[in-house]
């Protein structure tokens, strides 16, 4: 996982130093003298840089770039530009957007947490009376072991759902089913990830995100505009043709592109949160009531089934 804190500043600083042509450790030390934010990074990077290790390995070792970005840095013919592009792709995608994309897992965890809290409260308040009733209690009630079993069960269900989503995401065509909920958020998230992938020159990831974003956007554009867009050779030029990728002096302005995509994503997440936020609170509450009422509901169910 990439350490996003200060990643942008460090990569920008390294780009500046690489552009000046001086040794990276010395240049970074010079910049750190005037910028306290760079000081901790200087302490971490300087020994490896001074030892002459390849830059991509140093950056990867200190989690400043991802695995798929190592090859990009290694093969770069214009290191300052590459580092600036990587720096532009630094801001992390908001957690709420990711939670909305993984909504089934989020719902499972929310329901599960509510149930666990409710059953824990019931166990603390009434374990002995429940045992005195001498009934088969639902999972999670009656003992700590049962409660822990419920924790494992909920975690297993959440993990299974996440695994199913990952498996579905790998199947072309079928993965579109994962875009059915909160499509506006999915669209904006795909664009935010696409812009980041293009900025950091991760072609495979960019193609994947382009396909998702184009699928979720294509019916918004007239036939001629869609065809004209797809006629462009690559995703970068297609986005520029649509005006989604701002240009500065003829070249893409990656920082503005990431900021604009993030602003769209924030708007979409805000709008979706008006429904999903209260829904999650409702799930938490319902889970809590289920946890508290579990044994009683079991009895009522049996009453209903037995007559």
């Amino acid at each position, binding site marked *: 996982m990439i350490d996003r804190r200060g990643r942008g500043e460090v990569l920008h600083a390294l780009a500046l130093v690489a552009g000046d042509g001086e040794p990276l450790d010395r240049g970074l030390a010079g910049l750190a003298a005037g910028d306290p934010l760079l000081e901790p990074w200087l302490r971490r990077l300087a020994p490896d840089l001074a030892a002459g290790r390849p830059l991509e390995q140093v950056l990867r070792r200190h989690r400043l770039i991802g695995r798929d970005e190592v090859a990009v840095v290694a093969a770069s013919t214009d290191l300052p530009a590459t580092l600036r592009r990587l720096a532009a792709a630094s801001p992390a995608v908001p957690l709420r957007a990711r939670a909305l994309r993984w*909504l*089934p897992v989020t*719902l*499972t965890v929310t*329901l*599960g947490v509510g149930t666990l809290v409710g059953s824990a409260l019931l166990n603390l308040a009434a374990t002995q*009376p429940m045992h*005195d*009733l*001498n*009934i*088969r209690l*639902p*999972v*999670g009630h009656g003992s700590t072991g049962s409660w822990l*079993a*419920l924790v494992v*069960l*909920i975690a297993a*269900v959440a993990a299974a*759902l996440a695994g199913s989503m990952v498996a579905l995401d790998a199947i072309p065509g079928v993965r579109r089913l994962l875009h*059915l*909920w*909160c*499509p506006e958020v999915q669209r904006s998230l795909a664009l935010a990830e696409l812009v980041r992938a293009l900025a950091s020159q991760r072609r495979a990831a960019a193609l994947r995100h382009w396909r998702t974003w184009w699928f979720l*956007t294509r*019916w*918004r*554009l*007239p036939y001629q*505009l869609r065809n004209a867009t797809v006629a462009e050779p690559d995703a970068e030029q297609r986005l520029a043709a*649509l*005006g*989604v990728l701002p240009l500065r002096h003829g070249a893409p302005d990656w920082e503005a592109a990431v900021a604009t995509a993030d602003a*769209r994503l924030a708007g979409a997440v805000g709008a979706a949160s*008006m*429904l*999903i*936020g*209260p*829904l999650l*609170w*409702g*799930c938490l509450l*319902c889970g809590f009531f289920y946890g508290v009422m579990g044994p009683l509901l*079991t*009895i*009522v169910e*049996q*009453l*209903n*089934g*037995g*007559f």
Partner: protein
Amino acid sequence: MLDLLPILCQQLNADGTLSSPQARQIGITVKGLVSTVGIILGGVIALHILWAALRPFLFWQVAPPGITRWVARALAEALRQGRDPGEALRTAAIGLPVPWSYAACDVAEALQVGETLPDALLRRSLVRRDAARIGSAALRLGGGAPQRWLDDLATLPPGHQRLRDGLAPVAASALIALGILGFIGIFIVPQFEQICRDLAVAPSPTLIAIATISDSPWSKLALVLLALAGLWLAVAWGWRGLHRRSAAGLIASATAAGASEGEIASALGVADGSLAGICRACGWRADDRDGLLRAMAADTEAGERRAAVLATAARIVLPLLLAVPVWLLADAIFGTLVRLLVALEAAG
């Protein structure tokens, strides 16, 4: 009620009806969790599809205020940066739902063949008629007036953001809670009724009342009408005062740019050529530009204050209103449960 539970469970254990194996319990829990998540997810997807399908028909006359603001913002930015408005509209179209994305692209094409921006936007129902009239007046005045018109069109009414931030979460929570209560009323209450019928036990009066109401078609119609009224109110609130504010912005920017009172009156179609008369015709009480600016600032402040009061009142009143159906349902279900257990004890 809790005193009856041991007796009840003894009976059920004697019958062997409560001794299901642990593995079955685990299976039931997993199935319950997965099916609940599936139902909720299905509900979210269904809501999105329903909204996407209904939205063009609900807003067939004119686009929702948010769409107009989105388009106006894109055009205002393009004008400010000296870019082609057609390109800005095509870029904005990507962020718009169907059919307004197509409408935005149509406007871009219409601009290329020489149609004026306000007319093109009006014809594709992206702005209201009164807003388009102000836009035409802005074009006639020229200078910074079109930019001001677009900026005003892109701006939320005063207090709107505060009201949305304060009201929307409460309203959404209330809707979700009403949905849950409706679900309980439609699916759970009849089950209790059935149990009471099978055991020949009279349900609580509150349960009978709730069952009667949920069975009645008039209550469903009332709910639908209430929802539509709420939607209309939300949309109308987004448009309120737009014409008045846009006109004031136009007058202020035109006078600052040096336009004469006659030109402004002619552009706005007002008979009285004096500035006071123009302001009066547009809904403002002001004799000169400074007075108009003061009135606009006071109006904005009043809007913010109103929104703060409304948001606070809603945050207090809505949960209290919601407590009533919650209390009624709890009384109905628990009251019926107590009657069932008493009857079982009497029978046993």
